[in-house]
């Protein structure tokens, strides 16, 4: 009854809907839905044919975008995700992937793995990670979660924060977590593990009760990561970590962050402001900004007015550097849908 119930149809190609995709597959897993139900659901959500080959070579089962079973086919070079040992699930879409394709594939693969028991107890692992990063469970529950993940009771672990679409090798326990700044992937790994790709590595947690703190620091580190610095270690932040966490607790951004907004609005670019904080010469700043050095000189003279302090003084440079960090933290968001 379409008029009263609506209709499940393909997700918006442009809008990321990570949390709801996750909830969708969680419901299928928790409800012990079979592989066919998962594949059909994925095909309808993606609005495209989905295929699955549990192992080996040769053709796999395929369901079209309406959820109907169609003739078997090969994975070829379609976007795909591994299932267990040598299984594969794929989504038949040419050209630009839609916003939710990667997440649909990933959750589908995880759900199918759980079914075929190739990945040992994925769902309990996920829940254990959720318990530990939330930090509000009883000590007994936290210890149980650690044990479930295979860590000795007081092993040193680190929380690692990554984008939800990042792939994680090494079989580390992970969960997708909704945070103030969006949807983020939480990984719990032994001390020393380094991920590929953009990530924030939290401080060491010596015991389950400290995982939440490690996770919070990992989030700060992730927000500071970027193209220039894909992996940020919270350990390297020192006192800046304390400052970042303090600022996170304030309801409004610091005046120094608003001053950065004003500078950006006045035509300053972030890399150039970083150059100012680093004490770079006017000539080099001009090159970075692509303007004549006298233009840059004129701008430099107006900067103290914009910022409310003089960034040519030593303390001003530190203040600007810190303000840039806080500015980045204030605006970092992940997967807003």
């Amino acid at each position, binding site marked *: *009854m*379409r*008029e*009263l*119930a*609506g*209709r*499940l149809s393909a*997700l918006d190609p442009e809008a990321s809907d990570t949390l*709801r995709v996750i*909830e*969708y*597959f969680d*419901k*299928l897993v*928790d*409800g*012990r*839905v*079979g592989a*066919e*139900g998962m594949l*059909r*659901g994925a*095909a*309808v*959500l993606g609005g495209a044919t989905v295929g699955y080959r549990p192992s080996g070579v040769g053709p796999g089962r395929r*369901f079209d975008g*309406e*959820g*109907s079973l169609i003739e078997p086919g090969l994975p070829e070079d379609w976007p795909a995700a591994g299932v267990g040992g040598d299984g594969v699930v794929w989504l038949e879409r040419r050209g630009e992937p839609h916003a939710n394709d990667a997440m649909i594939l990933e959750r589908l693969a995880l759900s199918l793995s759980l079914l075929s028991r190739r990945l040992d107890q994925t769902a309990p692992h996920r829940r254990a990670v959720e318990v530990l990063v939330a930090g509000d469970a009883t000590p007994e529950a936290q210890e149980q979660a650690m044990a479930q993940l295979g860590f000795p009771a007081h092993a040193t672990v680190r929380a690692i924060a990554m984008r939800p679409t990042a792939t994680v090798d090494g079989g580390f326990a992970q969960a997708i977590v909704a945070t103030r700044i969006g949807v983020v992937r939480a990984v719990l790994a032994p001390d020393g593990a380094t991920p590929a790709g953009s990530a924030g590595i939290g401080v060491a947690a010596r015991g389950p009760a400290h995982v939440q703190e490690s996770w919070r620091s990992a989030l700060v580190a992730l927000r500071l990561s970027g193209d220039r610095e894909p992996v940020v270690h919270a350990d390297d932040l020192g006192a800046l970590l304390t400052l970042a966490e303090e600022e996170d607790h304030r309801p409004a951004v610091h005046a120094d962050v608003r001053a950065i907004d004003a500078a950006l609005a006045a035509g300053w670019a972030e890399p150039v402001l970083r150059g100012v904080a680093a004490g770079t010469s006017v000539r080099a700043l001009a090159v970075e900004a692509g303007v004549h050095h006298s233009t840059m000189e004129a701008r430099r003279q107006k900067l103290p007015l914009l910022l409310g302090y003089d960034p040519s003084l030593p303390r001003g440079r530190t203040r600007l550097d810190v303000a840039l960090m806080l500015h980045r933290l204030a605006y970092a968001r992940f997967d807003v849908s």
Partner: protein
Amino acid sequence: MTTRIHPAPPFDPELDAALGMVREMIPPSLLPEMIPALRQMPDDPTLEAQIAAVGAVHEERTIAGFEGGEIVVSIFRRPDQKTPGPGIYHIHGGGMIIGNRFQGVQGFLPFIESHGAVIVSAEYRLAPEFPDPVPVEDCYAGLIWTAEHADELGIDLSRLVVGGASAGGGLSAGVTLMARDRKGPELRASLLIYPMLDDRNDTVSAHQIQGIGVWDKTSNDTGWDALLGDRRHTDAVSIYAAPARATDLSELPPTFIDVGTAEVFRDEDVAYASGIWAAGGDCELHVWPGGFHGFDGLAPQARLSVAMVEARNAWLARMLDA
């Protein structure tokens, strides 16, 4: 003494997952002030293609409804209907307050191809602007018109089936009772898809489905209030408006009823089937575990939806067979 109502049976997980994805679009509780917005919902853009795919054409006629008021009926059939085929008189759903004659025909179109069926779908006038008895009398007028024009439409009158979903199922039941009591037309069968039958809205399942699922107890109040106004809960409600009130369900044509375990209409639909059996009648009842109202429309690819539609179509095919 208060009666404890247990929580509703759980939703089937495939259906639950699908419902989670569309939850923001339609809340479980529909209120009168939402009616205008609900009436704006767009029609199925693929309907034309579906009609063409079964080799059918669509025509419209304006006919006389209750007390001469004009209503439109749509006819879906093969352009060259050489031999008369079975007739399906379709009544759309929408809680008595929304919907149009194009909604819900999709499921019947394949029978044009398989059985040479002719589908007539009526645009009855909606409550609250047109309260009872207008909707059910409009539907009955359309049924009479269909029977009177059987030759022209290419309908074999020994195989005329009435059917619809939700409010359409309730109206189908009402029209079937009218056909029995007013001595015509003779119906081959009556297809009641999760029908809306009981204005009293006081069963266990009605109480269980409140604030959850699709078309909850509050929504049901909205629909029945619009249809019956102050007459609700009184003896002034006819069995044609609220078929659950009928105490005599004898002499009815073969009936098919389906419903989910997690919807408001579960108990009144089961009771209706029981009433038909108590009177020695022919009724096939299916109750789908974990189904909320209209689940086959929301998630047609789900295992339960496929099973529900297969059972329904198998029965209908037998009814339409020569």
